[in-house]
């Protein structure tokens, strides 16, 4: 299966080499860490937009991601499509199937990262199942992801217990390793997950797969407080977050909200890549505005009001 590199990416590569070592130097500082610091200073809930790379094509994903970033997404999670997405609900399953049908490979997704890095400074997190990373080879993947300009990686089906080599490979190249905590996680496990995570910790809001839900689970606030006891890392909450009301509520509990299926439903509905970018941007704008106002404000106001 040969990798189909979209035509406009070759010019992007040139742009990247023109900029020389500057992005690499920035990366050491940690784009993700800086972003969360800025959000905290502003007393603002972060919005993380998940986009399945390659649905319906890598070119389309580039447009969609740039539109989402421009509309206010603080961090982008780029989903690497996998044939057997056991943690995902129907919307992201279908997105993954479309992405694979369009010939998307991990190599192609890394090309997309390289392209995006020449156009935006938004933190980029690769969101993948473990097998594609493993098949590329963890060292080779880490090297490629870092040089393309990715900031972090989350492997859905990888827990800290199985992640020794992975953490070493990614960590040594300045890539953040983000792990999931879940409502079923014991205190002992949350401590281990917090210890293994850098950049932020991803808290799964409920038992279940990804996908939009009507309401947030009642147990979420105490769960988030429990996690908070074990880490000073920012906490991002995902799974089932789709509406401005969800985002508003999260402000008092977490540092960021992750929205995925709701955005990929926009992509699925759209008749073209441009329409998908417009649809995703509109939803991101609505959600980010909810994140900036109302309940989303931290109870402790920013030390420096001028930061707003």
């Amino acid at each position, binding site marked *: 299966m040969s990798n189909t590199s979209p035509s406009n990416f070759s010019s992007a590569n040139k742009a990247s080499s023109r900029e020389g070592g500057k992005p690499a130097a920035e990366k050491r500082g940690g784009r993700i860490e800086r972003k969360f610091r800025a959000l905290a200073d502003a007393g603002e809930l972060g919005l993380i937009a998940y986009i399945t790379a390659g649905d319906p094509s890598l070119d389309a994903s580039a447009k969609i991601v740039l539109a989402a970033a421009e509309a206010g997404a603080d961090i982008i999670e780029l989903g690497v499509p*996998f*044939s*057997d997405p*056991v943690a995902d609900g129907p919307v992201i399953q279908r997105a993954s199937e479309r992405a694979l049908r369009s010939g998307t490979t991990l190599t192609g997704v890394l090309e997309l990262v390289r392209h995006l890095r020449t156009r935006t400074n938004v933190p980029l997190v690769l969101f993948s199942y473990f097998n594609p990373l493993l*098949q590329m080879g963890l060292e080779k993947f880490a090297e490629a992801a870092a040089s393309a300009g990715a900031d972090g990686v989350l492997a859905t089906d990888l827990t800290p217990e*199985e992640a020794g080599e992975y953490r070493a490979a990614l960590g040594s190249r300045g890539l953040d390793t983000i792990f999931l905590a879940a409502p079923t996680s014991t205190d002992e496990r949350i401590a281990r997950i917090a210890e293994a995570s850098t950049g932020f910790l991803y808290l*799964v809001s409920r038992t279940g797969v990804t996908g939009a839900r009507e309401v947030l689970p009642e147990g979420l606030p105490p769960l988030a407080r429990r996690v908070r006891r074990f880490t000073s890392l920012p906490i991002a909450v995902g799974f089932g977050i789709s509406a401005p009301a969800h985002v508003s509520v999260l402000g008092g509990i977490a540092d960021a909200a992750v929205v995925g299926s709701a955005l990929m439903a926009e992509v699925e509905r759209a008749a073209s890549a441009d329409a998908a970018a417009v649809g995703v941007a509109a939803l991101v704008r609505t959600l980010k505005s909810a994140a900036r106002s109302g309940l989303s404000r931290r109870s402790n106001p920013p030390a420096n009001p001028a930061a707003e």
Partner: protein
Amino acid sequence: MSAAPQTMPDSRGRYGPFGGRYVPETLVAPLEELERAYAEARADKSFQKELDDLLHNFAGRPTPLQFASRLTEQLAGPRIYLKREDLLHTGAHKINNALGQALLAVRMGKKRIIAETGAGQHGVATATVAARLGLTCTVYMGTEDMERQRLNVFRMRLLGAEVVGVDSGSRTLKDAINEAMRDWVTNVRTSHYLLGSVLGAHPYPQIVRDFQKIIGEEAREQILRAEERLPDHLIACVGGGSNAIGLFHAFLGDANVKMLGVEAGGRGKSLGEHAARLAAAEGFAGARPGVLQGTYTYLLQNADGQISTTHSVSAGLDYPGVGPEHAWLAEQGRAEYTAVSDEDAVAAARTLARVEGIIPALESAHALAELIRRAPKMRKDEVVILNLSGRGDKDMEILSRYV
């Protein structure tokens, strides 16, 4: 054989490099709970007593070890014994594990059982046991498998199970497991996932193996009684590999007993045309170690780590991965793995029907086909035990197409 092979996984569920626990975080605590509950049950005599009673009075154990005199005569090779798991209630070895795990579920206070099924044999066994123990049961089955195993779909529904068709991916066993895992991750507090083969995250490969090892324990005693010696060869088909590991396990320490696992060679050697994960030496393409559905093992996949579709006439062997313990037995050279084509399996089923009056499941017919191929080259004083893991009633439609 330099040293005794490892017969238990390490504390992280590893058989050599294979196995482990690769799951979304939500499932880790339930897997740990299962591991604890299983350890307690193993140490509890009343659990074993209840299981033994069900195996004996409900499922029909022990199963006979039948000397196949006419097949032995016709092939003019080794003395052939059939371990008759096909005679069990519901028609296959699957009920051994279904009973054990369902009792565990009851112990853990779970009232709902989730299962996946390929050929439908594990689904039927699970639906049966759920009915017997008063548990509710949901079975996931690929829509392609539902089509080719319609009778089993009807049986499960008759037994009160909900059968949910899975229309994603290859619409076979792999996709049914994905959907069962999604159900489990959602309903994890109330439901037990009754995985049907030696697959998945630790401790499943060990639990399923332990509930199936009674096959080999019985066979070992039976052959010692019949022949006053151990067999030279064990032969069994391998999908996930539960009937094979069930037969092999009691003989792992017997260095002179050779073990042969037979995979589905399907209709060709290129990726997508077969389900041969460990028989790569025979030219079957696409098998490399990787992570799927909780475990690190040999998988049929493309260069990018996307899992391949597979093909076999037998739904129960039509799966891209193989149990991690088999991967380890293969890598150590303790067991040998080979593959048999659709056509040869069907022919073998017909042979057994006519020569011994037994219609085998198409899965078991793969093991039989390999025995038929090798028998002429074996000595007459050699002894073979073949695991006849299931009966062929479910395969009538497919068999009739080949007549």
